[in-house]
């Protein structure tokens, strides 16, 4: 039995008729054509599919689209505001926080959540927060630096305000 869901993704509300078994990541990629969110391991280990659902970073391969009915979702495409990259995106750029880029969208969404909860994290806290995101290229060092860079940027911005 199909089900109609209404989900607000990156500020736009979508209504779709879906099969209950449709995973949130498939809904985002195949129904909404937002392919920035990646499918990696499909077993909730690698974190490539991380998106925000109602402000919480979740693995969208381990959530049904039906569970997101009525929710607000932010994907990597919705992170930049007014044509300006999110500080975490900037950090990844400046510190070369990626090589192949496959893990990057999920890594950035998870990093954004870490900084939201803890604006001044230690390297160790960043690594603990990113435990659910696997990167097979960088060895994580540059990723941690990218998140630290974003933390500094976000702090100086909030001081300026």
């Amino acid at each position, binding site marked *: 039995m199909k089900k109609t869901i209404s989900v607000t993704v990156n500020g736009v509300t979508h209504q779709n008729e879906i099969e*209950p078994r449709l995973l949130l990541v498939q809904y985002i990629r195949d129904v909404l054509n937002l392919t920035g969110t990646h499918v990696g391991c499909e077993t909730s280990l690698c974190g490539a599919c991380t998106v925000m659902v109602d402000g919480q*970073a979740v*693995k969208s391969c381990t959530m049904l689209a039906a569970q997101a009915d009525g929710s607000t979702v932010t994907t990597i495409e919705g992170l930049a505001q007014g044509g300006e990259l999110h500080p975490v995106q900037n950090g990844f750029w400046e510190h070369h926080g990626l090589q192949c880029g496959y893990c990057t969208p999920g890594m950035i969404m998870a990093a954004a959540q*870490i900084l939201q909860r803890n604006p001044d994290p230690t390297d160790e806290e960043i690594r603990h927060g990113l*435990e659910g995101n696997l990167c097979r290229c960088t060895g994580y060092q540059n990723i941690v630096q990218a998140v630290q860079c974003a933390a500094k940027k976000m702090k100086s911005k909030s001081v300026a305000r």
Partner: protein
Amino acid sequence: MIPASFDYIAAKSLDEAISLLAKHKDDAKVLAGGHSLLPAMKLRLMQPKVLIDLGRIRDLSYIKEDGGLIRIGAMTTHFQVEISDLLRRSCPLLPETASHLGDMQVRNKGTIGGSLAHSDPAADWPASILALDAELVATSAKGDRVIKATDFFVEMLTTSLQPGEILREIRIPSGKSKPAQAYVKVRHPASGFAVVGVAVNLSIDGGKCQSAAIGITGVSPKAYRASKVESALKGNALDAKTLSAACAHAAAAVDVNSDLYASAEYRKQLATVYTRRAIEIAAGRAK
């Protein structure tokens, strides 16, 4: 990986969920956070015809303390447990356990009730729930039934929840002002599950251990209380001699799991070493 087809019903209240479960019986599964059930469904290890989602029932998500009891709603996420000031103050074992569980995203969505009802032999919660002498409240059309933690875990992936019952609350006796508790874990490097997880809840007075409750997960097909270790600690000062004699019993009288990552012999050794570490950490916190 796509689950087999099913009907999805988002229950609006616990009463509605109970009547849906009574109607669909074994065809139905109850969906909490989905972080155990959905992976199993994607692998087609489980193929329920109906999913009853508890995710919209707001009043199943709470942490409160009253009448000497801490009450945790079954739909409380691991993250909510991890950051709860109330628990950090009166039962720090639970936030500590939560912080070791899965990863940030899993903790954001997975629930304590869902994990307990799934009863994975390598899950973290069972160790702590056992060490805290928790009670689990199951509810059905017949009303509430209170189950002691020691009676809850039956075997791998099996609890004493009966058909038609939904786990709705976890209750923990509160009290001690400075709890001597600790959870330590050998984390499987790939899955994040516990190869061995030890939860310790001690009461120490006058330099001696007055009571000890130790829950161990990951070691055998179901989490268990290390009762031989507990009795060897009780009434004694926690010195090196007592600890090494007591902890040798950490995996006594259980079938020890063996897999590609850890043989039974290695796991048993880990259980001994980590039980000792957990006791030492807990005792250090009582000072």
